[in-house]
């Protein structure tokens, strides 16, 4: 398979095993700027592993991943970390906010990791928190906010650096349907307005409905699905 023209992030023939368990077995993936792609599949199918490989968190055993024309395998850990800091954003199932920091400090954290001053970082963070309707939580700690609010703070954190790709791993997995839908609306709207691509790992069709395209992973193999209209 060759990389589709104009794709921002593209993976081919990925293989990854954890001990005797084969998590990815020849999976492929591609995404264009501003596109929202849902990665679907049952539990244990390899969705999260695919996301971790695409984001440069876990190196695949074989296969290639190119981001903006650059091969991830050719980068060392520091380069991949720098890429994640500046070009990628992340949302996890349980938010994974730092419990010691306030919400605004959590959102500002990626900017500060990039060397932005605290004041500027928190100003930018507050802007994103407003867009995600959680600016009133700025001084609260993650333990003091609800799950849905925490997840919106996590979305703000993923977008604050102006990433070109947002990786969202079951972002609504811990939320009720109402909160989940609101988080998805805000995430996809904000990403589209920033022209950021979103790799959305989910096993819920309701969540996948927010995507432009779906890829199904089963037994470590991926398949592009035509959206049924």
């Amino acid at each position, binding site marked *: 398979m060759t990389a589709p023209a104009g794709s921002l992030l593209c993976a081919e023939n990925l293989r990854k095993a954890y001990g005797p368990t084969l998590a990815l077995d020849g999976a492929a993936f591609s995404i264009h700027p501003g596109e929202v792609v849902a990665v679907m599949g049952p539990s244990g199918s390899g969705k999260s592993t695919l996301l971790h490989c695409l984001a440069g*968190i876990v190196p695949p055993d074989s296969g290639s991943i190119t981001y903006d024309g650059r091969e991830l395998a050719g980068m060392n850990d520091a380069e991949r970390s720098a890429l994640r800091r500046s070009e990628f954003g992340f949302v996890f199932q349980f938010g994974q906010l730092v419990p010691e920091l306030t919400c605004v400090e959590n959102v500002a954290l990626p900017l500060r990791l990039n060397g932005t001053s605290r004041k500027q970082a928190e100003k930018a963070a507050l802007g994103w928190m407003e867009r995600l309707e959680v600016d009133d939580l700025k001084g609260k700690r993650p333990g003091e906010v609800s799950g849905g609010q925490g997840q919106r703070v996590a979305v703000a954190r993923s977008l604050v650096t102006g990433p070109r790709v947002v990786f969202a791993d079951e972002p609504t997995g811990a939320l009720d349907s109402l909160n989940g839908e609101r988080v998805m609306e805000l995430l996809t709207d904000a990403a589209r307005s920033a022209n950021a691509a979103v790799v959305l790992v989910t096993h819920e069709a309701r969540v996948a409905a927010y995507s432009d395209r779906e890829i199904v992973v089963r037994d470590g193999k991926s398949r592009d699905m035509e959206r049924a209209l």
Partner: protein
Amino acid sequence: MGVRFAFTGGREGWIRVLLTAVGVGLGVALLLVTTAIPSALAVRHDRDEARLDYTYGPKRPKAANTLLISDSDTTYHGDDVRGRLVEPEGPKAPLAPGLSKYPAPGEMVVSPALKKLLDSGDGRLLRERLPYRIAGTIGESGLVGSQELAYYAGAKNLSPRIDGYRTARISEFGHLDGTTSSNSMDPVLILLVLVVFAVLLTPVAVFIAAAVRFGGERRDRRLAALRLVGSDTRMTRRIAAGEALAGSLVGLVFGTVFFLLGRQLAGSVEIVGVSVFPSYLNPAPALAALVAVAVPAAAVLVTLFALRGVVIEPLGVVRTAKPRRRRLWWRLLLPAGGLALLAPMIGQGRGHGDFNPYLVIGGVLLLLIGVTTLLPWIVEAVVAQLGRGGIAWQLAVRRLQLSSGTAARMVNGIAVAVAGAIAMQMLFAGIQGEYTKNTGRDTTRAQMQVSLPQGVDFLPTAAKFSATKGVRKATALGSIDLGDRDWRRGPNTTIPMTVGTCDALREEARMTSCHDGDVFVAKGGDNDADVAKLARSGRTLHINTTNGIGPGKDAPWTVPGHLQQATAITSPIGMRTSGVLLTPAAVPERVNRLLTGVVYLSVDKSVPDAQEHIRNTAARIDPLADAVLWSATERSKQFDSIRTGTFAGAICVLALIGASLLVSQLEQLRERRKLLSSLVAFGTRRRTLSLSVLWQTAIPIALGLLLATAVGLTLGAVLLKMVGVSLGVDWSSVLSMTAAGAAVVLTVTALSLPPLIRMMRPEGLRTE
């Protein structure tokens, strides 16, 4: 149910119980060792008493039940070797404890540790010194410790050497009147021992309290799940108490096992010159029972106390209750109470009476426990004021602000140990002058002295020692006292007579010229008047023939004519003595036999084992020759052993607390594994997270050490006041103690970095 939860939580649960049990077990083992120390010391004391062979007892005739015994103690590579030459004079000669029969002349029975040493390459030089054939080993009942170096060597013809000091005829071992001595200690030394125990045991208690809280956060989450299915607050607390109880009970078992293993191990180690046999280490039953009850009770109380500030709610939410502002007043009560208990004893120094042990222990304990109550308040107050900095700093400060109690608990043990150690150092430094006396010896002129038994021809020994490896110069002198009348009647006036070559005599006096055969009168020393009276040509003086068992027959000596004048100078042993000085040709043979020789040796320290070569030469000259290494000062042995004991104890306690710090650090990291992985996922540098862990430990430890220094200095000052010694701070000791505490923390942080880096791997994000 709590007990069941403790064991049925799968791998995680077992690990948690195991960590708690190991932590509590280490503490319990240390407590059990402490309860066994009095019995161990008592057994050592009894064994030592049972083998006493007082050589200055009454004069006894040879009989079927007598034994001739000579003290031939030596030192090898800094270790004391207890040696006895024995010659039974009849079939009923008393048998020394640990022996089944006496060795024949040329043979010896040795302690197991000495046998091991002699059989090894390390004991080569000692083997030369003890050329006897090994015929057996001394049993446990004849030794005070498993590592004691001791031997009994068969000898013959000891009878003429009876002097009441080194050689004697005895008919029994032990105290002559059958009683045992009470080894009464100086009250200041008792104070030291009491404080040492309090100082060493408090951190152990703090450590146990920390150990039962391992895995606390995970437990809180589990309790929240229980709330969801209907358990009320009281039930969850009971369940938590049950879990803690289970951990501490397993800890008791572990502690007993550690103690038993350590007890066996104790037989093969020696700490600060003291070794014991495993059978000596029997914990006092009452104290052991107290440990068995107190540790689980403390575990439950600590857990319930810890749950005070936590509101456990259903729906998996564990919300730390709005932290109540820590109040200072009651935290100050403990140290203030400690000072109040110690205050009445201020000024009750030596000679003013004994210290009340209950007040001392109570006061010291309250002051030290005061560290553990004050530290959380100080950490909370200080971290609340800390400004913003880099991300690592911010992460650490915020973590501390959120749970300063956890951080303070982690360093409590170290802080208490350091505070106690600083106080002890101050006390030691303050009173060591009283237990150190200047020997007056001039260690620039000689570094060793060999005392030869009376009658040994000392003059040729100088050449033998000069030919020994490592000897730069050997000066042999003989001496004896001269009296104005027969020693059986007791002289009114005495002066010393010293014999040596001209070179040797110049170590004692300044002479214008000297030739063999000259006799000098040295003046300018301590007893000029007596010398002027007795040292007159033609006057008959009487040589001292007295030894430990009484005066011998009269030995007159007439002062020769042609006395030359000399000026006494300070001798190598630090004395300036007037008297009669004789060169060898001026000494009649019958006088020569009565002299006691001493050889001063200048040693080349660059020669390996020079001391041992010298001791071997001394032993070849006479097995009863006594070689002593000189030092400019000497300290009370009890004082030294308490000081070294404290150091050993402090090291053990710091190591134990370091281990506990490491375990709780790893526990905390494990709890945050997922968060660490996600932080790395969005690009946080590992260096940033490592630095944050370092700050997280460094901030509370810095505060803890500051508080420890303040409390340590206060306690030290009070203790010095108690013994009536002027205040003085040995800043180098304070710094070294503080540095030792800091080093423990740095080591722990360094050791926790590899697991931290492992936990930051992306695998932490996986849920399946």
